[in-house]
């Protein structure tokens, strides 16, 4: 809790708040809505960049905090931002339905399955970004480059799947409340991947950070 507070008070970059509002892109017709999750990844990159510029690692490691807990604090804080982003996305999905939704030709429609897809995007991001970042905290750009490439690859595959794969085209990429049980299963699978991926990311990141020599 103290480390979460430290991240919020000292490390958060203002873009994190702005990127949360990028969930409003769901209101734009014909837009790949998964990209709004990518923007939150960008905010996480800025947080890590700001941390480097402010010698956050040295400050944190001189507190009565282990390396493992320092990693846990950062990853849990970023995961919390991702969860908030999913909640804000859900609110904009509801707003979109309230004002009248239209089919999205650029990927999944705004709906329950989109939230499941968002969880998959964050799982991919977390599994790549944090372990690479904690190998060398002075190079967050490298970690972000790999993670962003993987996220965009997933968005491209998913968008193509909404045209080519029957389960995506005929089940997930349909306006709610059609196929709600299948969409709920997809979203639960996304949640499981999000939780497992983030836990695995935490494990790998801690191991990487334990071994690294910090260049101060």
């Amino acid at each position, binding site marked *: 809790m103290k480390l979460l507070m430290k991240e919020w008070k*000292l490390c958060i970059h203002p873009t994190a708040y702005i990127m949360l509002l990028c969930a409003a892109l769901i209101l734009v017709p014909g837009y790949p809505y998964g990209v709004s999750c990518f923007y939150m990844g960008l905010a996480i990159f800025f947080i890590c960049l700001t941390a480097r510029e*402010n010698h*956050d690692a040295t400050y944190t490691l*001189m507190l*009565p905090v*282990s390396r493992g807990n320092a990693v846990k604090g950062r990853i849990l804080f970023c995961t919390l931002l991702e969860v908030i982003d999913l909640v804000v996305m859900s609110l904009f999905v509801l707003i979109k339905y309230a004002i009248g939704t239209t089919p999205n030709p650029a990927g999944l429609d705004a709906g329950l399955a989109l939230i499941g897809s968002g969880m998959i995007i964050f799982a991919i991001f977390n599994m790549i970004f944090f372990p690479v970042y904690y190998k060398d905290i002075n190079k967050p750009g490298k970690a972000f480059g790999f993670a962003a490439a993987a996220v965009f690859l997933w968005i491209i595959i998913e968008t193509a799947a909404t045209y080519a794969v029957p389960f995506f085209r005929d089940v997930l990429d349909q306006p709610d409340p059609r196929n709600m049980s299948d969409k709920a299963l997809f979203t639960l699978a996304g949640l499981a991947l999000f939780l497992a991926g983030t836990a695995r990311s935490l494990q790998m990141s801690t191991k990487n950070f334990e071994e690294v*020599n910090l260049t*101060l």
Partner: protein
Amino acid sequence: MASEMKTPLTVQGLCKNYPAFQLKDVSFSLVPGTITGFIGRNGAGKTTTINSMLSFIRPDAGEISFFGLDYPENDREIKEKIGFVSAGMTYYTRKKLKAITAVTRMFYPGWDDTAYRKWMSAFGLDEEKTPAELSNGMKIKYALALALSHGAELLILDEPTSGLDPVSREELVEVFLKLKDEGKTVFFSTHITSDLEKCADRILFLQQGELKADDTLEDFRDAWRIAECGNEIPSALQEAACGRCRSRDGYTALIRKENAASFETREATLEEIMIHLEKEAEEA
């Protein structure tokens, strides 16, 4: 208070290998309530030693203990008793000092707000300012105020006086002496040896990754003499000298005290000892 009786820091057989530099079997311990100067030229390995001591970098070999507790195994307990200040390191430059303090105090059960107010006032620090608005000397003082407010008994300072003007350096030296009077132990790395002449009790001299001396300031200085000669160094002096340097009037040579009887010599300063020994190492 039991920890005051224990050795604040013991380093045993510390080694770190880089492709172009090796820290070789560094061992020393600190005496409680003293100021220890850790000297050596830039690149000698002072910062590598400190970073290894604090586990910022992982040493290849060696054992570190603070107050009798192994590090990093007992890092939580140890970090409550130590403070680290580095001259080149400024945290969260755009945050107000009060914001940094508010976060820092959460982590220390023994945080003493009265002590914090006392040190902030003594150092003339304004909590509404950001580190970016502070001079280098004031940044060091703020870092010291934080360390002293959580009850640090050992202060590890990496080049704290680098880049400061002589007046600011003198102020900091006075602070270190005051801390010593309060029973704190200060470990102070620097290549500005004149600061240590004013305050250090002990000297550790690191050269090319090897600890060459671990002694009291008086004994370290007393072991050497300086001979001043003209533009030609007599051959007997050449043989006895441990390093020669050009000076305005010719050359100076560093000689071990036991070899100095047959030459006209004077006492050597810390700076002269360090410079001459480095010259000798370069020529070797």
